């Protein structure tokens, strides 16, 4: 009696084991953003069709506590097999042992470096790659064609240099009788994307470099940095500014409402701006400096393999990661989300380059930089505070920049000294 029970149990267990071998389940985590969730659902459906033995559980969390969830799950001894992360979180995710390096046998380093845009190197540490992006984002200048036309500017030839940008902003800004700005020439704010434009765009265009090559030192507090910061600050200070920080709360809100002739924003804003029906808008590359030098900031969310994936699950996770980084997945992502493919050959097709909207963003990718953040929110706050000291306290850009450099260096030191 007892023996038969044990035999039965054993048989049941082996049956379960066979079942498990036939059907592997893996968890995929990302944050909630409508189109991203839709695109991923579509990718998972395609993947499961091609791999009937693998089931992918798609779980999403609000962006505000996404990182906390991943970290907390890991503390509790759980976590996803494939996880999405912002490239800037990589050091924290490695230090926290949340993810494992990609196996070079499955994801050969030379293939990654040859096929993806160079900014993928932000996912590399000590020769090992830790994740791959599906899509990348860059910045561009959005402009309101109706306002341009009304101000006597050619809506089909948007500003191409910093001087032209300033001239266009001066031509389009509007004030009321009391001198209050009622429509800005360019909607701005470090709280939006302008801290990226300042860091990787302007500072480099004025001949500087924001950080040392290893990312541990702030290097923007020099003449180039002062020149770049002063040029940007002159847009909102002085007797006849072309913009006002905090105008309509957020730059993108001002632009959407047709109260801004221009704004600098990323690919991720295309979805929101596509709903605009009141006016025609266009996109152009970030303006060049006098010598024609352009610089852009690119960023991305990458997918990495969770530290707990082993054996069959690891194999399934690798297959899934390979699929969501494939050309097919990138095309779906571009179509559904509007984000640019991370592989050069998928992105730089003639059709995409000729596209009036994707074109300028793609062009930007070729000269884009990625900032290695250690605490993105805190580092952005340094830039916001720098701008506030200039705009509200009337501090000189050079002094404000010096203080910002000191504050940001303290953040870097605290991180790298651990």
């Amino acid at each position: 009696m007892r023996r038969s029970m044990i035999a039965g149990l054993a048989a049941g267990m082996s049956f379960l084991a066979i079942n498990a071998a036939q059907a592997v389940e893996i968890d995929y985590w990302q944050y909630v953003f409508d189109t991203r969730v839709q695109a991923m659902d579509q990718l998972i459906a395609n993947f499961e069709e091609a791999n009937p033995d693998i089931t992918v559980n798609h779980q999403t969390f609000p962006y505000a506590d996404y990182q906390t969830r991943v970290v907390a799950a890991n503390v509790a001894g759980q976590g996803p097999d494939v996880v999405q992360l912002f490239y800037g979180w990589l050091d924290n995710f490695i230090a926290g042992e949340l993810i494992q390096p990609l196996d070079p046998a499955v994801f050969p380093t030379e293939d990654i470096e040859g096929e993806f845009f160079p900014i993928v190197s932000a996912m590399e540490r000590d020769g090992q790659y830790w994740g791959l992006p599906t899509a990348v984002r860059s910045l561009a200048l959005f402009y309101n064609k109706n306002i341009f036309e009304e101000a006597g500017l050619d809506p089909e030839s948007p500003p191409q240099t910093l001087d032209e940008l300033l001239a266009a902003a001066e031509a389009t800004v509007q004030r009321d009788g009391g001198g209050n700005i009622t429509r800005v020439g360019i909607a701005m704010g470090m709280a939006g994307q302008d801290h990226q434009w300042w860091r990787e765009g302007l500072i480099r265009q004025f001949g500087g470099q924001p950080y040392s090559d290893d990312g541990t030192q702030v290097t923007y507090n020099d003449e180039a940095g002062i020149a770049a910061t002063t040029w940007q600050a002159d847009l909102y200070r002085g007797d006849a500014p072309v913009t006002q920080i905090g105008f309509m709360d957020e730059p993108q809100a001002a632009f959407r409402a047709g109260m801004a002739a221009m704004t600098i924003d990323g690919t991720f804003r295309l979805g929101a701006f596509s709903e605009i029906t009141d006016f025609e808008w266009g996109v152009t590359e970030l303006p060049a400096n006098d010598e024609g030098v352009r610089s852009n900031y690119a960023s991305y969310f990458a997918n990495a393999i969770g530290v707990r994936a082993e054996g069959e699950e690891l194999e399934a996770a690798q297959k899934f990661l390979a699929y969501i980084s494939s050309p097919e997945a990138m095309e779906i992502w571009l179509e559904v989300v509007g984000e640019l493919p991370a592989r050069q050959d998928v992105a730089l097709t003639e059709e995409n380059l000729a596209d009036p909207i994707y074109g300028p963003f793609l062009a930007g990718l070729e000269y884009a930089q990625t900032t290695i953040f250690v605490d993105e929110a805190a580092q952005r706050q340094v830039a916001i505070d720098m701008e506030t000291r200039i705009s509200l306290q009337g501090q000189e850009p050079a002094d404000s920049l010096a203080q910002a450099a000191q504050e940001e260096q303290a953040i870097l030191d605290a991180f790298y000294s651990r």
Partner: protein
Amino acid sequence: MSAAVSDTSRNGLWDRFSIGQKRVIWAWTFLALPIVFYGAIRFYPTFQAFWLSFTNWDLLRPAQFIGVQNYVTLVNDPQFWQVFRNTFAYLIIGTPISLVLSFLIAYYLDRVRFMHGFIRALYFLPFLTTAAAMAWVWRWFYQPPPIGVINGFLGSVGLPAQPFLRSLEQGLPSIMVTAIWAGLGFQIIIFMAGLRAIPSTYYEAARIDGLGEWAILRKITLPLLKPTTVFLVVFSSIGFLRIFDQVYNMTTNDPGGPLNSTKPLVLMIYQTAFSSFNMGYAAAQTVVLFTILLIVSLLQLWVLRTR
């Protein structure tokens, strides 16, 4: 317990207890649930926070004991002292204004018969509204021209536009106005309940003795309203010391800004913990907040105690 032990005690352990003992056992049985709940949900995390404040835990790596290092950092952090001043500004300005205002409104509303219920409901309405929704509406009120309603009004009567939230001086008062307005309804209702609880015979006697309104207010209403006032002072102080929703929602682009001029302690704790993942440092700030709340509450109870 002196109650006699029953003869049937041999029937079982339970019967050997006296009635008094049984009562105690029952009482503790019922109390056990909330005690366990409070122990696990409230006190355990509280003590955990005390311990964490002596570590450098960042959620990712194991916590290391670093002694009082977090507190040393805190004392030397200029942002902390700025935030400390802000928190007390919310408390010291916000509490008296909101109490005086709500008392005045309750005092006069108590005498209004015309549409009394409707007016009272209007005052109470903001209290029912989500803080986040309210904060966003006010945030748009405060916008610079041509968007903000308040600046639109100022412009129409020929006054210069005010920066409100985009100002180092006006930011904190602007948020405080919203917070006071949000809490007003509740305080008015409590004050009115307190006013109604004072027996009308006292007023009648005072009027027969020929006392004026001012004397009645000073000698009867205010002294008899003391328990209500004590409750509201403590309640509203704790509310202002813990202010977060209004500030966070009205300054999301630059939380607690500009330049930390509106940032209260709770927002600093939130950012340290859930944006920088510096749990140990955040725990140290929490311990400081806990201590402040404790001292302020005890101080108020002592000052307003019944002699």
